[in-house]
């Protein structure tokens, strides 16, 4: 038996992914009028042709499965309690979301350039835009960007274009990854990025104020006063909102935000080491023609159906394309092309499956579970859970030992601790770990955490 990939290259059996057999190839080469495959590459520089390349040899499917199962097992046990949040939260995803998203008509389609045979993708994207507008309180949503951080960077670029100002302000505490990406994207445009501790640091140089909701340390932000303060200086309010929390919290739009971004991954599937992610991006209608990314619009057939059975029917198309790179080129609103359509589909199905009451109930359950866990921990001798106002699903824990040691002790007990935020400037974060407890955290995990903390506290 030959190694599988040898085939197609050397005249044996073709690779399972490549149908043409040697006989097919001979027939085709003859029709094309060349003696062999190599002849087709004669434009490539001879001196550099067919270099030595060091790649592992091909694996058959069973070997591949075995290898990657082994790899997956080298990650931490998925069943282990883990209290990391800080931008990625464990959620209960309805089974139908994965089932429907896996339909190969969705999975194996390209960006819907031919709407007549892409209504599945297009109509779903219109559903997505509608859900995002309802959640955020915005007028217009695109079909999604890469992730929350790059979406926020794009929001800053939009604000800069719209206000013609050259600095942006990010209100602390904000996710450091978000701040980082805004910096990266600003590099090219030559913008100044200010991390500001308070809204009073805003000036008329700032195009926008970026506020995370809930903030990086878990607190729920009262957006309205921030919006007022920003608008008073002609500054736009960009809110980076957790769409799940928006099941419970007032919509940023109602509170006065101009642009809302967010991360959709957690409502679409597992954390997956961070990706694929999904950047929500929605804005008030004046910014419609300034938005980055694809937008789907509703329209009608040009002609009634051929069987004469009725009026022109409703369909969906990519629209407002004059903003986009493939038309506008260097004057486009963004360079984005491929985004995260399939993740947006899963996000849409999860939110719609939960529906208005389910999303609220799930967010309340998350709130209750997290507050219960926090209270239990605060009741342990030697522990505090410093609060910075009302909060949603993440809380700070300061224990009887330094944060780093507390984390190590928990790990030694098979528990993934919250993120170490002890280096942050906020006083509440001093020597603290940031724990996330969500609606999907099993009770047994919280019990294990409390027991472990008690044990660590007892030994201290």
């Amino acid at each position, binding site marked *: 038996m030959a190694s599988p990939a040898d085939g197609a290259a050397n005249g044996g059996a073709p690779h399972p992914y490549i149908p043409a057999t040697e006989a097919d190839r001979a027939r085709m080469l003859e029709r094309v009028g060349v003696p062999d495959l190599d002849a087709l590459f004669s434009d490539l520089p001879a001196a550099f042709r067919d270099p030595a390349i060091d790649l592992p040899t091909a694996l058959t499917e069973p070997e591949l499965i075995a290898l990657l199962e082994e790899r997956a097992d080298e990650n931490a046990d998925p069943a282990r309690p883990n209290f990391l949040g800080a931008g*990625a939260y464990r959620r209960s995803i309805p089974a139908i979301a994965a089932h429907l998203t896996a339909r190969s008509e969705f999975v194996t389609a390209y960006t819907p350039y031919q*709407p007549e045979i892409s209504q599945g993708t297009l109509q779903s994207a219109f559903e997505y835009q*509608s859900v995002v507008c309802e959640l955020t309180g915005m007028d217009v949503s695109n079909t999604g960007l890469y992730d929350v951080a790059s979406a926020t960077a794009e929001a800053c670029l939009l604000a800069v274009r719209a206000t013609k100002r050259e600095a942006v302000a990010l209100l602390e505490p904000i996710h450091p990854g978000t701040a980082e990406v805004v910096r990266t994207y600003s590099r090219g445009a030559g913008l100044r990025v200010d991390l500001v501790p308070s809204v009073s640091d805003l000036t008329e140089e700032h195009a926008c104020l970026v506020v995370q909701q809930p903030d990086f340390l878990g607190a729920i932000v009262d957006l309205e006063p921030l919006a007022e303060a920003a608008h008073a200086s002609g500054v736009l309010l960009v809110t980076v909102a957790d769409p799940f929390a928006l099941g419970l919290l007032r919509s940023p739009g109602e509170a006065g935000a101009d642009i809302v971004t967010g991360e959709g991954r957690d409502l679409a599937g597992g954390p997956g080491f961070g990706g694929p992610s999904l950047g929500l991006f929605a804005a008030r209608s004046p910014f419609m023609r300034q938005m980055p990314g694809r937008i789907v619009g509703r329209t009608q057939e040009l002609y009634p159906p051929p069987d004469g059975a009725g009026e022109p029917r409703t369909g969906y198309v990519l629209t407002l394309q004059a903003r986009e790179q493939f038309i506008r080129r260097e004057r486009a609103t963004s360079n984005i092309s491929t985004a995260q359509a399939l993740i947006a589909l899963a996000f849409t199905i999860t939110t719609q499956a939960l529906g208005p009451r389910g999303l609220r109930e799930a967010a309340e359950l998350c709130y209750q579970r997290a507050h219960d866990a926090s209270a239990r921990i605060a009741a342990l001798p030697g522990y505090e859970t410093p609060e910075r106002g009302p909060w949603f699903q993440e809380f700070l824990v300061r224990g009887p030992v330094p944060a780093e040691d507390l984390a190590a002790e928990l790990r030694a007990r098979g528990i993934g601790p919250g993120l170490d935020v002890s280096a942050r400037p906020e006083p509440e974060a001093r020597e603290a770990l940031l724990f996330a407890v969500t609606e999907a955290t099993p009770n047994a995990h919280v019990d294990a955490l409390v027991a472990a903390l008690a044990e660590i506290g007892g030994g201290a």
Partner: protein
Amino acid sequence: MTLPRPKTEDFGARLSFDRGSPGRRAVDVPAWAGDERPLPDTHLLRDSLRLPELSQGELVRYYTALSARNFGIDSGTYPLGSCTMKYNPKVDDLVASSAGFATAHPQSPAEEAQGTLRTLLELRRGLGEATGLPAVSLAPAAGAQGELAGVLMITRALEDRGELETRRRILVPDSAHGTNPATAAMAGFAVTQIPTAADGSLDRATIEQELDESVAAVMVTAPNTLGLWEQGIEDVADLIHGAGAYLYGDGANFNAIMGRVRYGDLGFDVVHLNLHKSFSTPHGGGGPGAGPVCCSEELAPYLPTPVVEECEDGLVRLTAPERSIGQLQQFHGNVGVLIRAYAYMRALGLKGLRAVSGQAVLNANYLRVLLHGHYDLPYDRPVLHEVVFSGSRQRREHGVRTYDIAKRLIDHGFHPPTVYFPLIVEEALMMEPTETEPPEAIEAFAAAMIAIAEEAEEDPEELHGAPWTAPIGRLDEATAARRPVLRWQEEGADSPA
């Protein structure tokens, strides 16, 4: 003997928001059994939320019906040029979705994510080998983000050289993908367009003429969007370097040359790949993709964060290059896509990747000869992965536009090729069959194209109404843009945004 087809539902007119009925639900949420803590003050809380209310079965039927209104690779030949629509191995989805990968938290310490990290490391190494550009960051989420990374890396290198203030131009051929000039602009550069020569290649003279101390980089798609190799690119690279500029390679069409020639060997400084093209990860109707950026040692310190490295202690870690342009995303990129690409690379090995490029190129040339004479071929020479025909003759002689030809292909059971791109070809029909199409499928596609050319001669008027057999007829795109309706509105409130 046929009764009229019963009047069918205007499926698109009823969104999930318009279906179901108040109070229905598709899933339940567990009750909280513990003490109820008070919620935050009501001014912080939402008082209403409009979302669909459907039972589980209704929601499943709705999205199942939507899926049936979509065409994917599994539905048939999908020869979009430049997009490289090929069979997506199901095993890649399977391995990427195992719980160990799917539940890994992005903030995990390296010790707890070695399975993912080692997989990424080996992918990184494989891509470095295959491109001849050993320094690689897997962070970019798609091709365009890879481009942005690459151009920002050049920015930073120029900064370190103290030339950022002076080198403000990037040269981009007119045949380039729109993301190239858009990226250059987003990174703050002025774009100078380079015309394409009569043979379809870069116009060397113009390049030489434009190359001066104001130029930061030249962005070249290789192979280019005509499916042609830029002959002598290695010499152009020398010229560019001689002028103190960088050569950026758009490697979205890497599938044409995999295993046959390496960007690094030819003098490219930085290249992005589209794993959702060359490495056959599914497109998902518009993503997620992955656009790794690969570069020379010189540019390595500027790579986006993170880069996957094997450390001395044997652990694989995510690191930040010294002079990194910074992060592109909150976390580490579209990891699930990267795992699929790794699986694809391992399933093929070097010989397999060479077989991919060999067959992809043969298939494109086979299609070229099958259609030769039936449609205009503006650059009539052997091609690599794709071939660009033109519908000009049909337009000129019969008033049939490429748009009509594309729509009529749908009636024949095929997804149309890319149309009206590259912009330098009039009435362009840009076709990329890819290596996963069997010869029979290419023959059937060519037969359909030829049949349409005949229809264009015989019934030109008729073609304007196509398609007739799709889930929906030709759509009014102009009105959609003029009076945009971009979201569900309550019945009656259907006013434009």
